[in-house]
């Protein structure tokens, strides 16, 4: 009798553990951003470059052969500056 009770309790405990595992939030796989994003023009337009410029928080260093895009100038200038 005692052995049966013990077995029943063990079974119940196992079910509870399984239930807890089943209901526990699924551990999300690490979905890190891909290290490289490809930008294809002319389809992408100015948006990827403008977003990149505006995403800089401390420093932005670069070299360029020619720049004349008003969208790029606008992204580079500080907020409030009048062009």
């Amino acid at each position: 009798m005692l052995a049966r009770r013990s077995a029943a309790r063990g079974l119940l405990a196992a079910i509870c553990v399984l239930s807890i595992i089943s209901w526990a939030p699924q551990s999300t796989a690490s979905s890190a951003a891909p290290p490289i994003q490809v930008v294809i023009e002319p389809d992408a337009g100015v948006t990827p470059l403008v977003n990149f410029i505006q995403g800089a928080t401390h420093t932005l260093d670069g070299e360029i052969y020619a720049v004349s895009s008003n969208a790029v100038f606008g992204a580079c200038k500080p907020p409030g500056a009048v062009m």
Partner: protein
Amino acid sequence: MVRLVLEQQPYGMGSYAADPAYNFLQTYVGQVRWGGQLAFRYTHASYLVADGARTFIGSMSWTDTGLGANRELGLIDTDPRVASAGERVFNADWNQRKLHSAPNAVVVSPDGARARILSLIATAHKSIDIYTERLTDPAIIRALIASHDYGLQVRVVTPSDASLASVHRHHLQVNDRSPAVYGCQSHDRRRQDAA
């Protein structure tokens, strides 16, 4: 803080073509300097490093045609090694110093780019696809011909008559056969707009 190095004479047009951008950036953005004074001929690079951590590098100039009309390819890379390499190149150019050893994470011209490209060609096993505004370097053309001789499929898209002429000439010099007969495919896409 924004720091930009600009080419002073883009398109061979003299500084008046770049002065408006220089003046705007100096007035509104931060620090700007002309490049190409000492260590190289032109600043033909196109890249940005944000916060020393993210890199935007591409073939496009930041013009309306470069960002909305031309076929251009760019990469946004979060690899810190690429960002560090970009900063090394930038700091050398910003300070008008020679880049004594090119970083491995990026291919830098004129500091060993040809050797890196030749190495890439030499390690291809099946095919080589090239999309370039100009292809006139004899060493690279010879390497492509050798790859084709070895059995690789070699395809070139170029809008440049000079590139096509160069490919033709080198094919003729090496094999006395035209590219069409030789098997190297080249697509002549006429330039419709400036870079």
